[in-house]
């Protein structure tokens, strides 16, 4: 065994340039895999965080019947006694806030905007005191101020939306909407703050105003369309949803239903899942690079050493031992490639995880599903590094078996005659 190992290691150094080229090809493939894996995982983690922090919260409560019609913004399916629910959740240890979501036409005036116009908008009525306990908009304020409790004419806008329509703090708009029951109502509102929300989907459309003002205008009689709940990090959201639902049911609030952010963001998760499949494709490409490189190297090695092979077999060395020697040699090339690949991948990942790559130019005008506005950062995934390292070596060993088998099929006199 010691001889087989020694022979394999010495043969590894026999054709240094060829070994190096093959190892570099493997290293490059593994590094690419690590970079892509790190980026995808980092983007996915940050997307999920931005989704929860700015879009869905961890768990949301609706009146039964709201969810199927949610795209129509059914105000009549509101939660009638939100304070009772909030108190209950608070007692059970959950942090929650009320929100009312409604559609409106936003009228822009030439006095502020240079020309008259209108656009369709989605407005969220928030509780300025509690919203930041669940969502994180306060940290994203770039201009003006946040809303105050009971503020009747204030409005917060996402920076991309503001940029798109040329809005600035202090500008006035009129929101024309239909209240609960179908009547038309108009609200004059002044932009008091602009937030640069890291979630591009939100930043592109965000308009927030005080929920009490919104409720009054919409004729909600104290009702809200949703209650959003924040969960501590690492909570099992599905378990928490079940607990919340049980608590609601136990207190006679069984006309309400709780949903996890996973359910609320089903479309996003489906896209993320599909993109994760892309990692599999890259792994397959790495496999092809490694397979072709190693297979070719081993084929050449076997071809050049056919006479040696014949000699070893003539002297009584078992085919299995010869095979093992070549497999160890291939594993050695894989090991070199994996070590270099891991090192390069780690170096690249230091940059990717800490500095990241700015895709802002792409995300500004294009919705690719991810909830990241500009800089996409990778993350450290030890599992990926281990899998990559082991795969580099294992794949190299596996693909070397084919050329070895071919050479061992040759009879000994032919091996010895080989030029």
């Amino acid at each position: 065994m010691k001889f087989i190992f020694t022979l394999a290691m010495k043969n590894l150094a026999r054709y240094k340039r060829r070994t190096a080229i093959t190892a570099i090809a493997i290293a490059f493939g593994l590094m690419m895999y690590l970079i892509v894996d790190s980026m995808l995982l980092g983007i996915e983690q940050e997307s999920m965080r931005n989704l929860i922090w700015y879009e869905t919260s961890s768990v949301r409560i609706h009146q039964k019947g709201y969810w199927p019609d949610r795209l129509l913004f059914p105000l009549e399916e509101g939660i009638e006694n939100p304070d009772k629910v909030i108190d209950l959740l608070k007692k059970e240890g959950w942090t929650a806030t009320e929100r009312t979501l409604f559609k409106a036409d936003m009228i822009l005036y030439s006095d502020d905007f240079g020309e008259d116009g209108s656009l369709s908008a989605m407005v969220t009525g928030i509780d300025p005191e509690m919203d930041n306990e669940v969502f994180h908009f306060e940290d994203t304020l770039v201009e003006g101020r946040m809303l105050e409790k009971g503020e009747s004419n204030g409005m917060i806008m996402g920076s991309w939306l503001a940029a798109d329509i040329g809005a600035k703090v202090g500008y006035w708009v009129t929101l024309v909407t239909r209240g609960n029951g179908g009547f038309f109502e108009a609200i004059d509102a002044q932009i008091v703050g602009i937030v640069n929300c890291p979630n591009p989907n939100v930043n592109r459309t965000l308009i927030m105003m005080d929920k009490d003002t919104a409720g009054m205008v919409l004729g909600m009689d104290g009702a809200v369309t949703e209650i959003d709940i924040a969960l501590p990090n690492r909570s099992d959201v599905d378990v928490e949803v079940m607990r919340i639902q049980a608590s609601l049911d136990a207190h006679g609030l069984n006309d309400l239903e709780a949903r996890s952010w996973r359910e609320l963001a089903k479309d996003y998760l489906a896209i993320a899942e599909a993109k994760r499949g892309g990692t599999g494709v890259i792994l397959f490409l790495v496999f092809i690079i490694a397979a072709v490189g190693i297979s070719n190297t081993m084929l050449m090695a076997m071809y050049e050493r056919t006479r040696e092979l014949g000699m070893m077999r003539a002297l009584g060395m078992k085919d299995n031992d010869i095979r093992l020697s070549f497999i160890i040699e291939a594993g050695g090339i894989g090991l070199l490639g994996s070590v270099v690949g891991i090192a390069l991948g780690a170096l690249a990942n230091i940059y990717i995880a800490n500095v990241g790559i700015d895709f802002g130019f792409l995300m500004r005008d294009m919705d690719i599903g991810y909830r990241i506005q500009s800089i996409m950062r990778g993350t450290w995934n030890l599992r990926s590094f281990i899998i990559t390292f082991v795969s580099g070596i294992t794949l190299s060993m596996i693909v070397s078996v084919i050329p070895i088998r071919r050479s061992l099929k040759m009879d000994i006199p032919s091996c010895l005659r080989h030029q």
Partner: protein
Amino acid sequence: MIKIENVSRNYKTGETVVKALKKVSLEIADGDFLSIAGPSGSGKTTLLNLIGCIDALDEGEISINGEKVTTMGKKGMTEFRRNNLGFIFQTYNLIPVLSAYENVAFVLSILNVSEEETKKRTMAILKEVGLEGMENRRPGKLSGGQQQRVAIARALIKNPQIVLADEPTANLDSKTGEEILRLMKTMNEKYKTTFIFSTHDQMVMDYASRLVLLHDGTIISDERRNG
């Protein structure tokens, strides 16, 4: 004792069948220093390969010390070669990445001999073939004669019953060739190992104690000599 009875071996090259050996029969006694001579294509190497259990015959039977090698099967033949046969090749066939020591010692490693014993025996045989002090040199740093000495040491280190040498001096100048032959003769006398050569070199024939001449796959003469 090697007993070859009515052995035939045919090779197919495309549609043509080449009869390399035609019903050859031969008995080789233990300790013989036998040379199989003949022109190119006479069947010398084929006969050597059949005795060395690295080729399969088409007809006849070969037995070595009463063991029929023709019925051993691939694994059995490998084991038989490992334990009983030594080989010396025209082109030495040393492993270039290994030192002279490692090239010789590897034969014992495949026989699972202990490291200590391997070292003792390898150093002794290298000294015997005149390579003391050159143990760590790789084949590329050795002359043709020195490389063939390593090959002889490799063939003899396991004390085989039989050493088969295919044109062992063909790649050497006459002076070095003679040194190698003298060395093999010494080993033959010292260890009573049977040496079988294939050659068309007159000097090798002169050293042989028995000369078998082949022509077109048939033995045309078999004579004892005072080699």
